[in-house]
């Protein structure tokens, strides 16, 4: 198996106005693997993941420097349109956010419709495929015209995953996707992530260490905006090299 990095982060620095939140992050994220980002509240993990799909800069006064290379191309190059990047790198948020005025089917294909694809046959087919990939198809196949808001929390989150999948990204970022969900929905989504890594590269931010241990291949530990340690998940959890990593995992702080 060829281990190649889908994303390489070089000297990434991020700030909100005068406040610097990420200090010189250097990291490689492997293709078709799940990489978990862990760390206490405020350590910069959400900011980090938002730098990967150029969502960080949407906030007023937010700044980024450094490089993020996806397939060896720096996504922060001046000739790159961030809108395009976000199609190739999708995101699922902490709280499910389906579009309230759209049906389930329209929610799934929103990314395609709004980018000019009008052929209903293509849209319907894509909706079905994406919902299947997100393990939601069986539950909603007869209710595609119902509002996206009529689903339960866990289903809404899977709807958001289907929506992200429909635009055919290479990478999917998950920002604490299960923190608002019950254990059963959480476990469904964890199983889904393991299935998805076959075709996609996944990065997941989580404050739940058990989840990171269950699901991920590699884990990065962040503290106060710095990358403290990065390695295979097994190694991080069983034999952490840094003391602060060990402290966090054992539960001494955070």
């Amino acid at each position, binding site marked *: 198996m060829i281990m190649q990095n889908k994303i390489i982060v070089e000297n990434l620095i991020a700030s909100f106005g005068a406040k610097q939140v990420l200090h010189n992050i250097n990291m490689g994220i492997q293709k078709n693997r799940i990489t978990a980002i862990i760390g206490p509240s405020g350590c910069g993990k959400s900011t980090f993941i938002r730098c990967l799909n150029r969502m960080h800069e949407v906030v007023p006064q937010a700044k980024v420097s450094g490089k993020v290379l996806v397939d060896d191309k720096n996504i922060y190059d*001046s*000739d*790159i*349109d961030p809108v*395009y990047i976000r199609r190739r790198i999708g995101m699922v948020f902490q709280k499910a956010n389906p579009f309230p005025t759209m049906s389930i089917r329209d929610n799934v294909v929103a990314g395609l419709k709004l*980018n000019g694809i009008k052929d209903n046959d*293509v849209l319907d087919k894509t909706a079905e495929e994406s919902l299947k990939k997100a393990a939601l198809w069986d539950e909603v196949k007869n209710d595609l015209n119902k509002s996206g808001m009529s689903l339960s929390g866990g289903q809404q989150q899977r709807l958001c995953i289907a929506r992200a999948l429909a635009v055919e990204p290479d990478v999917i970022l998950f920002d604490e996707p299960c923190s608002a969900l019950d254990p059963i929905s959480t476990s469904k989504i964890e199983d889904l992530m393991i299935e998805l890594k076959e075709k996609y590269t996944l990065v997941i931010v989580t404050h739940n260490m058990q989840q990171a241990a269950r699901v991920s291949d590699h884990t990065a530990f962040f503290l106060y905006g710095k990358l403290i340690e990065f390695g295979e998940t097994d190694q991080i959890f069983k034999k952490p090299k840094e003391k602060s990593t060990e402290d966090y995992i054992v539960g001494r702080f955070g």
Partner: protein
Amino acid sequence: MDREYLSFFRISRSKFSGDFIFEAIIGFFALCILVFAFLLFRELFVESGLSRNTFGWDFLTGTTWDPVSEVFGSLPFIFGTLVSSFLALLIAVPFSIGIAIYLSELAPEKLRTPLSFIIELLAAIPSVIIGLWGIFILAPFIRDYLAPPLSTYLGFLPLFQGPMYGLSMLTGGVILAIMIIPITSSVSREVIMTVPTHQREAALALGATGWETTRIAVLPYARSGIFGAVILGFGRAIGETMAVTMVIGNSPRISESLFSPSYTMASVIANEFVEATSKLYVSSLIEIGFWLLVISVIINIAARILVWKLLRVEGGGRA
């Protein structure tokens, strides 16, 4: 992965992207607002030029308004506007605060929405209809039932002297009060609702009654916001035209008595603008309009600052 239908998306960012064009177009409409505010002031300022140059500041202090000999002084109207509006405040504010307190603190839950809806309805009635009612119902009522006792018991005050024929400063003040109660009470109510619950709870935990809680915990907190609501009401009273024109008597004299007819800035414009024959006459009326706008804007800015501060800071409601 089948990506061909995504292939027409641009990688590189062009200067005239959809985002730029869209923002420019709707930004243009936002700019229209500024342009139009500017035009509003400019038109009135320029068209009042003849009058301003002829009379200077005497326009604001002159008491003669004589279209025949072309002498125009606006003091009677400024007097009429300010006094009628102050009178309206004197009457409306106690009621408005009472209403606001009742509807936000003391009334049973079920009554709150219907009652506030009914009060709002008063604001929806067109001013010309309120004026119509004012001429035929309110003015006779004040003349026959309110003025006599005022004259009998308080007649030693110059305020209540002289004959009362119904159309008077007093009637004008009352009708304005009726018209500003809805806005003053509703903004006061919103302000009162932004008082944090923990303030009330602190008082209640000490064993305070409903009224005492309102008096100790709520009102002091909401004071500046309520003041802002009062100023908003004042601004509304100043700009009001039809109802007050129909009941105030339209006589440009300055009198100490509330029983005398009076004339407001808005009313003189409404009555005489179409009849105004000479350029100076029209220009003078426009100058009155200009000052009316200026006063209105100043009052509104003061009110917004007071109300905004409280509503934004507490994160509650909308002005």
